[in-house]
């Protein structure tokens, strides 16, 4: 029965993962909307495997459509670079390899996370200092004064948006998804609609990888994620960005393996923390916890086994179909797909949160354009969550 649950979760996650820009948190709002948590109350394995499969499959949609969400934003540039060279399939393959090794390493590091979290978590000052340090690093790692100034301005604007939607939220009931879509997805989609694109044939590449180098890159990603998960509001993309700023000499292949490893490890660690400490680091997992879907009902061994099976099945499933999917999507007119996508997301937001959500979506989209026009790293938009966390939740 558990195997069937995992299999259905992986299949559904695969389908959802192919929809560009849809984050796993969006799916939880959808489940709330259709009453899915009441219907599938005893099916924790289904929800766990769905999240794993959705994340792994989303690399195919990020590659093909060029529209990320806040978990996959760091993958976009290396994948776009490979796309221009006709090597997109290799890019997705690297993401799959990074995800697999990252997932396995993170399962092995669960005991280390347990020790770290139980000793460090109560040091609020340590976590507070770490978030401040990270924000300062984002500023000083930029090379020109103008860019530094732009980053400070974006941190302030995102922070104000975060405070008045997450802490003092008088506007709509669930502003997080609306703002995340506005900050991360819409500016990308609009940019790609108005930019000139030319058709490039994506060739089948030689997929030989060095096992030792791949393992080291994946392990680095998992270790980065291990420390990132201790900090509330710190996303996997920000961890990836910091790793890439510190370890500057990385080629595109290594980037993709590290980023994928960070993202999958963050997801695995989030499940582990939710079950052992009731500290979900992801909206989707928080909703699973608050609906009693996961928590006491699942043991650590059970969780580890479910994650491992979901990981293997998802990697197998995606590796079987990603080449064909990329070939099919490459034949479509991306501009038309992106325009349809804008309308689809807009409709989804209106259905889930009402027409009142639209002005907030427009505001967050305008703010989401700021890194694009100033040419700074877009993960700084996560200050939207980081600033309220520093001020009110630590």
């Amino acid at each position, binding site marked *: 029965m558990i195997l069937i649950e995992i299999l259905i979760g992986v299949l559904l996650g695969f389908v959802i993962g192919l929809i560009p820009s849809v984050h796993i948190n969006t799916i939880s709002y959808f489940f709330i909307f259709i009453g899915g948590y009441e219907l599938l109350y005893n099916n924790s394995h289904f929800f766990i495997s769905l999240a794993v499969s959705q994340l792994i499959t989303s690399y195919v949609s990020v590659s093909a459509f060029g529209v990320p969400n806040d978990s996959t934003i760091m993958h976009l540039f290396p994948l776009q670079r490979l796309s221009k060279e006709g090597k997109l399939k290799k890019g997705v393959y690297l993401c799959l390899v990074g995800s697999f090794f990252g997932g396995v390493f993170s399962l092995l590091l669960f005991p280390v996370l347990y020790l770290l979290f139980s000793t460090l978590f*109560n040091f*609020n000052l340590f976590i507070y200092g770490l978030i401040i340090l990270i924000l300062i690093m984002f500023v000083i790692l930029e090379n020109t004064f103008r860019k530094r100034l732009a980053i400070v*301005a974006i941190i302030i*604007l995102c922070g*104000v*948006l975060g405070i*008045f*939607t997450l*802490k*003092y*939220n*008088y*506007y*709509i*009931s*669930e502003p997080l998804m609306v703002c995340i879509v506005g900050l991360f997805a819409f500016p990308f989609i609009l940019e790609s609609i108005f930019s000139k694109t030319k058709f490039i044939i994506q060739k089948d590449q030689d997929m030989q990888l060095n096992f030792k180098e791949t393992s080291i890159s994946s392990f680095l990603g998992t270790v980065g994620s291990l420390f990132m998960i201790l900090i509330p509001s710190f996303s996997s993309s920000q961890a990836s960005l910091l790793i890439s700023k510190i370890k500057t000499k990385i080629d595109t292949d290594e980037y993709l393996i590290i980023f994928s490893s960070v993202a999958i490890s963050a997801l695995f660690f989030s499940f582990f923390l939710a079950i052992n400490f009731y500290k979900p680091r992801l909206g989707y997992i928080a909703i699973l*916890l*608050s*609906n*009693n879907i996961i*928590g006491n009902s699942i043991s650590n061994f059970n969780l580890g086994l479910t994650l491992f099976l979901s990981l293997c099945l998802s990697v197998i499933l995606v590796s079987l179909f990603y080449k064909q999917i990329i070939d099919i999507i490459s034949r479509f007119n991306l501009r038309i797909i992106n325009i349809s996508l804008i309308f689809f997301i807009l409709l989804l937001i209106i259905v889930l949160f009402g027409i009142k959500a639209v*002005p*907030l979506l*427009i*505001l967050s989209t*305008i*703010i989401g*354009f*700021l890194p694009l*026009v*100033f040419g700074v790293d877009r993960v700084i938009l996560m200050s939207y969550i980081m600033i309220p966390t520093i*001020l*009110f*939740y*630590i």
Partner: protein
Amino acid sequence: MNEITFKRIIIIFSIIGLILLVIYSLFFNPQEQPISNLSNLKEGTIISVIGIIKDVSINNNLVTFSFCENTSCVQSILFNPSSKQLDQITKYSTTKERVVISGQYKTYLGTPEIIIYNIKKI
């Protein structure tokens, strides 16, 4: 439109939008609800409730208490309270004064709760 004009427009619209959001939040008047009626509300609704504060627990950056009206009570949570808010809560819980709290109605592990934004004496 050149790049500088576009930059200016984006910045101006961001600031104007945020100012409007702040003004909306400052002047928003949440609907008053009896505690006994909370379970009928949609999760995430912003409400104000009248009652008395009981069983205060202060833990690091978190204050929780039962907010009661007659026999109905609801768990209320205040994140990262200021020292003024802490003094208010302690005072109101000892004097059993009726106060109005405003905040967001949520459920946690199936139990209703209010995430407090503001506490005021009636």
